[in-house]
């Protein structure tokens, strides 16, 4: 937007996002937490109850009788109910946000999905073309190697012929080489050509070597892999599921029982 005065800077083109109705609202994370705290305060005595449970729980002494153990069990139950009440309030506030997140992601995915299909289609065409280019490059390389090998053999034959001539003249092979100044047989190695394509907008399409693998025998894997923390963690999970299911003997595993306290 031009102004009447040449030395005055033009009005900024980007609108200020806060210069709109509601632009002075606090961020969503502050708003939602404030609403959550308000809802908690509206729940009849919930926060006071939690404070009471926390204070009494921290002051609890040693458990020295069955009656006391019963009271401690009741306390654990009461604390669980209070925590559940807080969770219910949180869920009430979280549900609309979760639904909105899912709707937003669904909408964005619906827009991107046809694009992904189109890209996959183009990539398939590209893969076919690049495979053909690699095949042609491999063929050229093979031919170049053939030529190099033939040139090497020819040079070797010539060298041998000259040495034989020197022999025929009564000279030793070493003297002949020194006198003739025969160069070392050097044949230029053909460069491995990788096909690469450049687009007008800066894209580069090329080939990349990707190494893949398949486990043939788990038992032959080295210790560095079998004893890796991630492997052990996965094995722990599988074994725990089997022990929970009733397995009491698994080779290589020590299984034992412990008594723990549960409150129902």
């Amino acid at each position: 937007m031009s102004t009447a005065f040449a030395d005055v800077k033009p009005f900024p083109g980007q609108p200020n996002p806060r210069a709109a109705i509601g632009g002075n609202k606090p961020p969503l994370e502050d708003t939602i937490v404030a609403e959550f705290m308000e809802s908690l305060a509206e729940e009849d005595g919930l926060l006071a109850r939690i404070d009471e449970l926390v204070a009494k729980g921290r002051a609890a002494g040693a458990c020295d009788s069955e009656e006391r153990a019963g009271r401690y069990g009741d306390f654990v139950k009461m604390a669980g109910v209070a925590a559940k009440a807080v969770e219910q309030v949180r869920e009430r506030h979280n549900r609309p946000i979760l639904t909105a997140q899912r709707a937003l992601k669904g909408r964005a995915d619906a827009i991107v999905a046809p694009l992904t299909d189109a890209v996959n289609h183009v990539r398939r065409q590209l893969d076919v073309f690049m495979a053909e280019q690699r095949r042609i490059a491999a063929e050229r390389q093979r031919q170049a190697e053939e030529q190099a090998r033939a040139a090497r053999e020819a040079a070797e034959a010539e060298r041998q012929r000259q040495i034989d001539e020197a022999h025929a003249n009564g000279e030793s092979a070493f003297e002949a080489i020194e006198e003739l100044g025969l160069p070392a047989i050097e044949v230029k190695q053909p460069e491995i050509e990788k096909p690469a394509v450049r687009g007008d907008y800066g894209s580069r399409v090329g080939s990349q070597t990707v190494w893949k693998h398949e486990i043939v025998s788990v038992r032959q894997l080295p210790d560095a892999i079998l004893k890796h923390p991630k492997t052990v963690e996965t094995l722990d999970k599988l074994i725990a599921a089997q022990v929970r299911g009733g397995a009491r003997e698994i080779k290589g595993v020590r299984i034992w029982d412990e008594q723990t306290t549960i409150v129902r």
Partner: protein
Amino acid sequence: MRSGLDYSERREFIGEYQGYDPDTPVEGYYRGYLARGGHPVGIHIWYGAPLDPLTGEEMDRGWRWQATANGALIDLERVWPRFADNRIDQPEHDHLCCVQRWAETHAPDSPQANPTRPIDLMRAPVTL
């Protein structure tokens, strides 16, 4: 495929009957609940002369099976054989009765004073 058994054929039952006979209670003291999630009450089941509901004295009537819950008469069908597994001794039963009597006087809103109401874990007193 249908089984070849003839279900109309009577067979001898192999084994012992488990469980309690609902028509023949066992005298004694039990822990029971008058509401789901309520405070336990002491149940007393006995075979004897009926009690006067006003004075509590034994009446000169035919003996019958009777039950009380914390001292108050209750239908036998409500407590037998439902609480037959929760057998307790007399001191424990008397303690439960005393707890309710005390709570009715000193803590009328507590779960102990209202065994017919489920315990509200959000409002029950915290006793550690």
